[in-house]
């Protein structure tokens, strides 16, 4: 029998619904896990033990009285510590916001709460979702559970580490330049950056308004679908939040991939940026699996990856600076070095270059939309290599480990799934991208591949 902490949301939910599993027992199991493992993993900034246990008791009473709310009822969920939580500190992993206690929940937190989810903790992040794995902040950086000397990536570092190690069943992340998909890849889990505007960002500490996405991070694509069912609600108070009808993301899973048109953006990883051989080999195995399921696989050409990266970085840095400008001028010493340096850099982008980048972005959106007239999904590796040593800072060294930026710039949905392991036992990852508001299709492909490739049966040795 699978340990409680390694059940998927789908599995636990079925047991809870049938009253075979008590939410109280589930929460207690996760609290014990956090106490045992997190002193080494550092995935949590704050553990919400009392509130979670109270939530477990409440969920149990509701379910026993016939009031089961749905698949997230009684499920332990962690929140990246940029999601506002009413009456509970939301720090952004920064000394600057160490004492910031919001008066309201973020919209997505409320959605999860309404669905019956139980919040187990506030999770580590790169400072304000930009800083990097830093050692000069009030809390240490999260570690990678597959190898504690390795970086989990970020900025949703605690979310990736905690889900992979079985310290929560699902977590919320945010993705401005790849911050859901990067840690999903290096921690070996599923992470969805939904279509821009599908999930509200209200009540999330902002970074870059036109690139920020909220999204779920779970052990499986199926669990991400279950979370999307609770999260995809229109919020009129986030100007970017689209008022579109949401499908049943979980019901869309299964049913086969016969005839699916799969475009491989091969030049990203073969000519634009060098990529390690194990990552490419895992991708080829995934492509073979897709062909075996009846998909038609062919190569697709987009602009060089560098054009997406340059466009995204100019927009991201400028908008991030606009968010933090006053604090950077008045109290720069309250940031960690990585966060301060990265945020200050945005001051150097001219207005003309920011506008030019937004124009380039419009061109890239049109280009990807054209490519996706002949392809239902696009695929390429999420990362160029498995997890690097922690402290081997990628941005300061100029090394860009990920192929994520392209789908922040365009806003199209993108999912990272684990598609294999390196010889040294580190997760490898595939990125699956779809058309706007076709997130269900992306999750369907991710779910089919996970089930075919058989990668979901392996957890980090540290967590077993």
């Amino acid at each position, binding site marked *: 029998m699978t340990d409680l902490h390694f059940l998927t949301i789908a599995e636990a939910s079925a047991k809870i619904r049938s009253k075979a599993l008590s939410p109280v027992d589930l929460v207690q199991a996760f609290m014990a896990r956090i106490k045992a493992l997190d002193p080494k993993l550092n995935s949590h900034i704050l553990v919400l033990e009392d509130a979670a246990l109270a939530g477990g008791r409440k969920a149990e009473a509701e379910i026993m009285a016939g009031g089961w709310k749905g698949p997230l009822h009684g499920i332990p969920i962690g929140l990246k510590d940029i999601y506002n939580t009413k009456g509970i500190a939301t720090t952004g992993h920064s000394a600057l916001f160490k004492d910031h206690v919001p008066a309201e929940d973020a919209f997505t937190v409320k959605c999860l709460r309404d669905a019956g989810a139980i919040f187990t903790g506030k999770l580590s992040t790169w400072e304000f979702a930009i800083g990097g794995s830093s050692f000069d902040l009030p809390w240490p950086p999260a570690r990678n559970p597959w190898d504690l000397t390795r970086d989990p990536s970020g900025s949703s570092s605690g979310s990736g580490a905690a889900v992979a190690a079985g310290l929560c069943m699902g977590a919320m992340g945010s993705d401005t330049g790849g911050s859901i998909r990067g840690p999903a890849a290096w921690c070996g889990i599923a992470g969805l950056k939904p279509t821009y505007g599908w999930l509200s960002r209200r009540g999330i500490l902002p970074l870059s308004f036109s690139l920020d996405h909220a999204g779920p991070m779970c052990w499986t694509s199926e669990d991400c679908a279950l979370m999307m069912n609770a999260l995809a609600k229109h919020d009129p108070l986030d100007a970017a939040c689209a008022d579109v009808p949401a499908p049943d993301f979980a019901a869309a899973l299964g049913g086969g991939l016969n005839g699916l048109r799969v475009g491989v953006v091969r030049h990203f990883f073969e000519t634009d940026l060098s990529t390690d051989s194990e990552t490419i080999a895992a991708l080829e195995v995934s492509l073979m699996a897709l062909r075996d399921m009846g998909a038609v696989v062919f190569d697709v050409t987009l602009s060089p990856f560098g054009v997406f*990266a340059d466009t995204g970085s*100019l927009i991201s840095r400028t908008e991030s600076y606009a968010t933090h400008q006053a604090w950077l*001028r008045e109290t720069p010493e309250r940031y960690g070095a990585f966060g301060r340096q990265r945020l200050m850099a945005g001051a150097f982008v001219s207005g003309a270059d920011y506008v*030019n980048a937004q124009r380039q972005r419009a061109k890239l959106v049109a280009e990807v939309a054209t490519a996706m007239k002949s392809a239902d999904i696009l695929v390429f590796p999420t990362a160029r290599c498995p997890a690097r040593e922690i402290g081997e800072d990628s941005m300061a060294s100029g090394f860009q480990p990920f192929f994520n930026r392209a789908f922040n710039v365009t806003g199209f949905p993108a999912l990272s799934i684990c598609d294999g392991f390196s010889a040294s036992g580190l997760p490898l990852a595939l990125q699956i991208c779809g058309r706007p508001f076709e997130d269900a299709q992306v999750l369907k492909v991710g779910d089919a591949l996970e089930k075919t490739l058989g990668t979901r049966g392996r957890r980090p040795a540290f967590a077993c």
Partner: protein
Amino acid sequence: MEDSTFDARLTAAGLQPSGADLPALRALVADLDRAATAIRAPRPYSEEPLSAFRLPRG
């Protein structure tokens, strides 16, 4: 030349990073300058980003 441009832009922004920040900040700014140069081009109206003036119909 690059230093004076960097310093002038830093002063104009009203920022006072510590001396220890400067090497990394210079590298980040150099990368942004390269990125801006790489994608600078004349753009037609068809490449305008979201338009604040695309008004909804009444």
